């Protein structure tokens, strides 16, 4: 079975030239229809994903996705359209649809491309593309081995949602009527496992995953399985807590979410709409003075790396927070114009954000906290960016004397994000390296826990 399946995935992968030519065609079509400026993006991705559950193959999926999107400007009027069809007729129809919409949208002073002099000149090779020559059989064996380790970890592991292996290669090209045309390819591979433990009447589930651009950098599949099982077993026999105030540690794997909230609150879209609790906080203290947050878009092989943003603007390394003071916002060209500022090369988001870590690992942080809550899972969307209110479901462990006492669940943690940032006590050295945002565990002085 692998021959046909593999050739399917491989034969279908286009060259960068193909996508660049298509992008140029789209821009030419827009110009031909009278657009005063235009921008277009074309993407292609192909991949394989398998899940093995209770030792048997559950799903084998082949992914193959194409995209083409165009935005046209007639003066200050804007229109957009997209399609998955790359035929010449579809290109014509899609550009025509975008032009048609621009007849009805209003003049907007801030609409337009990013300034021409901001376009990236030399696209650096960030070593982002590491295709994995993975047959479906090999993927199945890896997933099977991963899940098997989890299932045999402990007799209380009684069921499974499976071990999974995912491999994807993608290519993206962006061009605009400044004459900019650039693109690059990238890969992402992952191994994950989710298993279920039972003790008495209670069931718990947890998971673990490893992700990397290069499969050689993935954690061994067996280690992923063991971690998933270990995380599941330790949650069994969870209790509730009485309602109280207490210090809280966000474990590294969810601490990245706290930083993501900070990033969201300083994004241009939220700022010009006055929909952020960090409005007008540029140059102000938002964290204690020892906190440093850095964006590094050009790290080799990193999952968040990108040579340019979604508008062709060169990405650059910078401090987002220095000595606790907010140094910049997260802007694209539109929100920058709305705020009378300059784009920060963040159309599409931040690239490799990290908070400088301290010297204590999680065990050290637990000792520093003494008595409090270690949160390993948060649930729900109880985040209000307008006023900063934070209230989410949580599960984790109750800690006394710096030691984990027992697992807890069915509680909420609440506070105000501005307050939580100011009351950050320490950043652990246990940095979660798997994502675009990297953090060690975060110790926060106090939050409200609601329970019994």
């Amino acid at each position: 079975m692998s021959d046909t399946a593999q050739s399917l995935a491989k034969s279908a992968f286009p060259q960068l030239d193909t996508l660049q030519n298509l992008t140029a065609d789209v821009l030419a079509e827009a110009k031909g229809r009278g657009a005063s400026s235009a921008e277009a993006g074309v993407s292609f991705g192909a991949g394989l994903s398998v899940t093995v559950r209770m030792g048997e193959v559950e799903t084998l999926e082949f992914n193959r996705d194409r995209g083409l999107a165009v935005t046209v400007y007639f003066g200050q009027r804007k229109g957009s359209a997209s399609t998955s069809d790359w035929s010449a007729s579809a290109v014509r129809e899609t550009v025509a649809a975008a032009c048609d919409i621009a007849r009805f949208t209003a003049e907007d002073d801030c609409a337009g491309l990013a300034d021409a002099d901001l376009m990236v000149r030399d696209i650096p090779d960030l070593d982002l593309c590491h295709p994995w020559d993975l047959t479906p059989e090999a993927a199945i064996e890896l997933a099977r081995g991963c899940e098997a380790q989890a299932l045999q970890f402990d007799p209380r592991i009684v069921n499974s949602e499976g071990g999974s292996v995912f491999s994807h290669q993608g290519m993206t090209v962006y061009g605009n009527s400044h004459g900019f045309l650039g693109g690059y390819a990238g890969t992402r591979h992952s191994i994950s496992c989710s298993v279920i433990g039972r003790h008495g009447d209670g069931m718990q589930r947890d998971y673990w995953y490893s992700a990397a651009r290069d499969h050689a950098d993935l954690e061994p599949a067996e280690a992923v399985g063991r971690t998933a099982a270990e995380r599941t077993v330790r949650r069994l026999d969870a209790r509730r807590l009485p309602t109280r105030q207490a210090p809280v540690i966000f474990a590294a794997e969810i601490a990245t979410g706290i930083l993501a909230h900070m990033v969201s609150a300083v994004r241009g879209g939220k700022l010009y709409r006055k929909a952020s609790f960090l409005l007008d906080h540029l140059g102000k203290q938002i964290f204690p003075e020892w906190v440093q947050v850095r964006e590094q878009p050009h790290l080799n092989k990193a999952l968040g790396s990108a040579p340019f943003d979604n508008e062709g603007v060169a990405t650059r390394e910078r401090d987002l927070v220095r000595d606790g003071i907010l140094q910049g916002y997260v802007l694209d060209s539109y929100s920058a114009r709305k705020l009378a500022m300059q784009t920060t090369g963040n159309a599409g988001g931040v690239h490799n954000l990290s908070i400088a870590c301290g010297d204590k690992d999680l065990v050290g942080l637990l000792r520093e906290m003494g008595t409090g809550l270690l949160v390993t899972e948060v649930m729900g969307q109880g985040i209000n960016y307008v006023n900063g209110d934070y209230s989410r479901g949580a599960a984790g462990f109750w800690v006394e004397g710096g030691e984990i006492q027992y697992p807890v669940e069915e509680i909420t943690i609440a506070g105000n994000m501005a307050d939580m940032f100011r009351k950050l006590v320490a950043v652990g050295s246990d940095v979660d390296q798997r994502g675009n945002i990297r953090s060690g565990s975060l110790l926060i002085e106090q939050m409200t826990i609601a329970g019994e």
Partner: protein
Amino acid sequence: MENAIEIARNRILTPAGLGDDDLDAVIGRVLGHAVDSADLYFQVSRHESWLLEDGIVKDGSYGIDQGVGVRAISGEKTGFAYSDEIVLPALLQASQAARAIADAGQQGRVQAWQARVGNALYAPADPLTSMDATDKVHLMQAVDAEARKQDARVKQVMVSMASTHEVILVANSDGTLAADVRPLVRLNVSVIAEQQGRREQGSSGGGGRTGYEFFVDQERALGYAREAVRQALVNLEAEPAPAGTMTVVLGPGWPGVLLHEAIGHGLEGDFNRKGTSAFSGRLGERVASEQCTVVDDGTIAQRRGSLNIDDEGTPTQSTVLIENGILKGYMQDRLNAGLSGVASTGNGRRESFAHLPMPRMTNTYMLAGQYDPQEIISSVERGLYAVNFGGGQVDITSGKFVFSASEAYLIENGKVTRPVKGATLIGNGPDVLTRVSMVGNDLALDAGVGTCGKEGQSVPVGVGQPTLRIDGLTVGGTNAG
């Protein structure tokens, strides 16, 4: 339903030069390799969206997505591939990949095609062309003006309006041939109000399987504007919410997201077949107070969560999940129904041709009870009255669920008093409904903006309920005093 099949043939198969014999050939090719069953899912979807802010319609977009998904099933195994080109060579290539799953199974052959008749819950009209572009712009501007004229404290108004026209065709190796033409419209308003440096938000919206005229009828869109402003102004006065376990009264309509999270997901057939849900193996047991009867009903005319047929060609139905407190049934797709020895309940749904179907909710709600809503509030000495919510989430294995209030009040001595800030509520799915002590007579369904996410796939859904009194739910405010 002949009509939908004819439309689908004309829109999808004919332009690609595909006939019934080609469907035979593609499915036959999958089945030839010891696969139990196979299906093809063709989809052509056109969609548009418009955005107003700062008083002007500043952006609009239009898109077409089309393709075909090929699924092969062998026992509990599923092989899946798709193509965004609807042409025979691509179909044959995808079928070759999908059948790679099978190393055992019964030899099968395609049954004679039989058109399957579905419900007729909405017209096969195209909502994108249901109003001309100038009128769309005027409608959004009218919504903006309505919001701004409500109160001088309104500082920001955002209006988004979107529609989709989707044509699908399902061909299954058992001979099922079914199609559906699905319109869907949505309009959302969100506002920010400011008072003495404090800013708060409010939002509202609605929609359904119809055209844009839905928003003009009964001045619905203007009503959303007024409602969003009302919520924002209430929130300007809100105090910190209490923290701890207390009696909670939930208002009618959208607070039914409680049912979606607390019990809905846990009653989906895939989790129960695998034994991963906190509700697994509990059919026939008491899981709610006897006042509670909960259904999943995909057959309500023009509702956002309704479908004439599900994405496997099965007509949707009304499925009783809980009857007078007793767990009666799960929601099934074909795969999980077959493996569990029951029939599909018409809940097999998928985000698109590029995703595998699985059991999903449609419109999930609780039937009305006997109490006057005012009587329910009067019965509470001290508690929380929550009337509007954002989203929620559930861990189906532990049963723990959350949902976040966006408008809530304290109840003191049987009266609704001060507004409190939004807070997340958390509970345990298998026992929360056992604590329902009063069910109101005011059943309402939500306005039609719900979207449910599961394993990375989003589908439109509906929820509803009457006013409910729950004796003991944990409220995650900041005020622990």
